[in-house]
């Protein structure tokens, strides 16, 4: 009951932030959008624009209207072209979701495999996770992305990163997000698994004659997975920025490029939708990580 209240409070705070943040930007959409459309922002033109966009109402009224429409699935219309925000979201969300959520899931899976292998004594896995961690720490994602385009798109010609179908376009960005999150997570998994391997139950498992790889998977694995789930909550915030960078680099028509344009044009409805979605993504990952922790860690079930 208390937890439900906390989540509800978070969502309310999120809608307020999504509504207020775009309006906190200096400059009014009337000026930027009319300028973009080549219209001289005379007082009449500005008045007509604000009236048409419903921006002449009081701020609380606008907020109430936005929430009421959201409740029935109407995300409002973009101030620039007048296209429905919902349609734009539907076009762009899948791409961002594959790159961000797919990349994070892949990275977490890779981290679990690499980390446990490293804990079980594999030199290759230890060196690989170390190199991935160093890559994420020292090489900007856009430099690694350029190198990947050069290697896979130009030298080897395996994929066409800018043309081709959806799969070809998102393959490299998704792989980049996955590799960038995998390194540090894998080292965390290995560290936690090694801590478990020093405990008596692990020694017993080995003494029973369980092979190393199986003993690690069965008895140290859960410890690694718990640490991984806890770390996902922080990694989810990085993925938002990482996705924005690779989307721009690979010219993937996802949410981030849309948002970058929307900031410049002060396109409030689009920005509201974006901030709301990012907030929901963070809340969902948090909830997922908490659920996973509760499932994985019997000490938390009381």
């Amino acid at each position: 009951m208390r937890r439900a209240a906390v989540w509800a409070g978070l969502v309310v705070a999120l809608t307020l932030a999504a509504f207020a943040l775009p309006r906190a930007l200096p400059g009014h959409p009337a000026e930027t959008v009319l300028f973009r459309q080549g219209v001289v922002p005379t007082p009449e033109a500005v008045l007509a624009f604000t009236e048409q966009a419903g921006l002449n109402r009081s701020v609380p009224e606008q907020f109430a209207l936005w929430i009421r429409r959201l409740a029935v699935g109407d995300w409002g219309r973009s101030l620039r072209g007048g296209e429905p925000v919902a349609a734009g979201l539907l076009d762009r969300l899948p791409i961002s979701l594959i790159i961000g959520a797919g990349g994070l899931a892949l990275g977490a899976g890779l981290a679990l495999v690499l980390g446990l292998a490293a804990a079980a004594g594999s030199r290759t896995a230890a060196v690989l996770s170390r190199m991935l961690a160093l890559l994420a720490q020292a090489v900007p994602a856009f430099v690694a992305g350029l190198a990947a385009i050069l290697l896979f798109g130009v030298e080897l010609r395996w994929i066409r990163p800018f043309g081709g179908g959806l799969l070809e376009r998102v393959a490299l960005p998704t792989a980049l997000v996955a590799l960038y999150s995998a390194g540090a997570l894998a080292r965390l998994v290995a560290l936690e698994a090694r801590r478990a391997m020093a405990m008596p139950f692990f020694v017993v498992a080995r003494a029973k004659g369980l092979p190393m790889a199986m003993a690690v998977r069965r008895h140290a694995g859960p410890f690694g997975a718990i640490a991984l789930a806890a770390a996902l909550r922080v990694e989810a915030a990085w993925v938002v920025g990482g996705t924005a960078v690779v989307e721009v680099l690979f010219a993937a028509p996802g949410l981030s490029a849309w948002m970058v344009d929307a900031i410049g044009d002060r396109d409030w409805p689009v920005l509201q939708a974006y901030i709301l979605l990012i907030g929901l993504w963070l809340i969902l990952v948090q909830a997922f990580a908490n659920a996973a922790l509760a499932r994985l860690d019997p000490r938390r079930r009381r």
Partner: protein
Amino acid sequence: MTPAVRYRRWLPMAALCTLALAGIWVPEAAVHGVDLDRRLAAPSLAHPLGTDSVGRDVFARVAAGGVRALVAVALTLAFGLVAGVALAALWFASPRGLRAPLLRLCDLAVGVPSLLVALIVAGAVGLSPLSAALALAVGGAGSVAHLVIELGRGAARSLPVMAARALGGTPLHVFRRHLAPTLAPPILLVQGYEAGRVLLAWSALTFLGVGADTGQPDWGAMVFEYRMHLFDAPLLVLGPSAAILALALACACVADPRAPASTAGDPD
């Protein structure tokens, strides 16, 4: 451990700072000077990294970009440190009931996607080392506050601190002689890691270019601008990329976990 060994991990950073500061003395004309007669010139003594598509000296631009990057990183760390310590001080000073919400506030600061906040701030007031630092420092402030609260709670109960207080030491004395020396090393260690993270975020911001003055010789902006010349003049992309890599590695060197500041062993 001799002082020479202790300061060795600062060497790469010092070398790079010197190199970047040399960029301050690079004549403005070399950074912004357009010369269409020497477009895409090959590296030479006069232009160690060649010139770009409008004839500007690439080395001068990389050095000038380095100064801006260093300023951005230093400002971010400073803001994060000050705000984090202030938050922690507030936590220690506040009554029990207020402590939990304050901790949640720190969690929130850590969990906010800092690059997104920085993009919005840059869109609002323009991208500069100052505006980027203000936005990027949010996450750092949260983690510094957590660290100071966690360490400070332990230190406050430690024997030397209790003894110093029992002997009538003023709060300032206790802080200066007992708390600060215990808290400083781990915080500085984390700042070293943070520096690399901030540098990559600053590069990403300049690469995305929201609210940026496109004439500024920032590393990310240079990679974005020159990426068309990846084949005819690869040095244009390699120069700023290598600069980011070198500075990030220098930051990692400063935060080397095998240095005496940390007692934790390296897992691998």
